[in-house]
């Protein structure tokens, strides 16, 4: 059954078109994907991300559980900070990539991908029988505010705006809300989780301040331009963090599920490797198109038009890892040479 955001009537009023994503019907665009994309790169936009998973984990064993189940080490950060991490299977494949907000010694909010919410929550709950796990999706709305102007708007609306990668318990018009200086666009800003009954007021206040409502279409082109992996496309249970160039989120200084497999992979070398590339013109590489470089073969996992580069950009895997040779993509029957670019494809200038 498809679920809907508590803000769906507001979206309809704002002219949204909807798309099904991760079991949720969410806005894909309001006016134009490119206009919304550029608004986020040059000003600010807000996204209803209520489909995102979110649950709280509090009590005895919480930290030990997250350290064992996730490959990044949550003890690398203290309370008041957030961390990007992954849940792996025993083979080192990515069960989910997610963000953890830390509030205290054994007090967390865990934000899996929409489609993995139940499964991650169930595994965490089973591994931490003495801790309390509460599903936050039924009672909250999640809104991402992103763009160079986003921190200013968050500071105006919240009692305290989150700084980059920090988490904060703050207020909106007298109601407690929580936020982190995170996002999925490569821009500054934050993600705010609010009780359902104040969420529409918050969204309307953003609109009144000129923050542009943006849909999942722009969210996808923004994350791709920023070179950020999407679970289900770049990441799955048959892909390891090392193959996806996510080593920065793997901490080998602690024990975690999948560690042995990753150590074996480091010894033997990678089976496949994520590559980024851009087309010469506006031809767009699409998911599933074939890739080749020398003896290496593979497929595009994400591809779209980059509104900032005005070129087609894509991510994909090649097996075995290709070295430095020429990279080609097959666009509807024609092999075209593409420029290999290590993501991000677009990096904003100036301080973030």
């Amino acid at each position, binding site marked *: 059954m498809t679920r809907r955001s508590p803000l769906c009537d507001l979206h309809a009023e704002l002219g949204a078109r909807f798309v099904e994503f991760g079991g949720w019907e969410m806005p894909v665009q309001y006016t134009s994907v490119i206009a919304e994309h550029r608004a986020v790169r040059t000003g600010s936009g807000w996204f209803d991300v209520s489909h995102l998973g979110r649950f709280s984990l509090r009590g005895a064993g919480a930290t030990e559980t997250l350290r064992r189940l996730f490959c990044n080490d949550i003890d690398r950060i203290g309370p008041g900070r957030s961390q990007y991490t992954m849940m792996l299977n025993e083979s080192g494949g990515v069960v989910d990539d997610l963000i953890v907000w830390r509030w205290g010694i054994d007090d967390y909010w865990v934000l899996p991908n929409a489609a993995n919410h139940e499964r991650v929550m169930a595994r965490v709950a089973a591994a931490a029988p003495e801790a309390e796990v509460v599903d936050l999706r039924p009672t909250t709305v999640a809104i991402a505010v992103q763009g160079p102007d986003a921190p200013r708007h968050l500071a105006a609306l919240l009692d305290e705006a989150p700084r980059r990668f920090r988490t904060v318990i703050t207020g909106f018009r007298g109601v407690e809300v929580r936020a982190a200086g995170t996002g999925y666009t490569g821009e500054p800003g934050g993600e705010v989780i609010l009780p359902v009954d104040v969420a529409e007021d918050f969204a309307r206040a953003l609109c009144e301040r000129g923050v542009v409502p943006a849909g999942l*279409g722009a969210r996808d082109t923004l994350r791709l331009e920023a070179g950020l992996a999407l679970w289900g496309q770049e990441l799955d249970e048959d892909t390891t963090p090392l193959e996806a160039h996510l080593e920065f989120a793997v901490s080998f200084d602690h024990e975690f599920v999948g560690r042995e497999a990753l150590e074996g992979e480091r010894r033997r070398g990678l089976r496949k490797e994520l590559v980024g590339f851009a087309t010469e013109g506006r*031809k767009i590489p699409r998911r599933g198109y074939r890739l080749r470089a020398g003896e290496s073969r593979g497929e595009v996992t994400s591809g779209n*038009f980059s509104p900032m580069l005005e070129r087609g950009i894509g991510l994909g895997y090649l097996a075995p890892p290709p070295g430095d040779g020429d990279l080609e993509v097959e666009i509807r029957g024609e092999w075209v040479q593409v420029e290999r670019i290590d993501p991000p494809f677009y990096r904003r200038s100036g301080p973030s």
Partner: protein
Amino acid sequence: MQVPEDLRYTEEHEWVRAVDDGRLRIGITDYAQDALGDIVYVDLPQTGARVEKGAVIAEVESTKSVGEVYAPVGGTVTAVNAELEARPELVNTSPYGDGWMVELEPEPGFELGSLLDAAGYRRLTES
């Protein structure tokens, strides 16, 4: 959704307008551009190319997907809208005007009346 009365249409969501000397100007409909979303690239044929009825004469890339434009009639390409190379978004903003794509010299014997009229096309998009 605009469906101008003075044009003819195909079931593949193209419009056809008779221009000078029996040539045909072809583009995609308002319905088609709306379904595709933001158009970022239009791959057009070479002027002078011979095309069969039903052949792909252009490809339209959007942020959502790629669409193909089919020749509503066989003929010879007499002109393409070069403006679309730099401004493909004209297909979104002016699908029946500045966003036209191709002009064809149709094969002899082609009857414009064999294509859908506005009422027929409107029924197609509403069904």
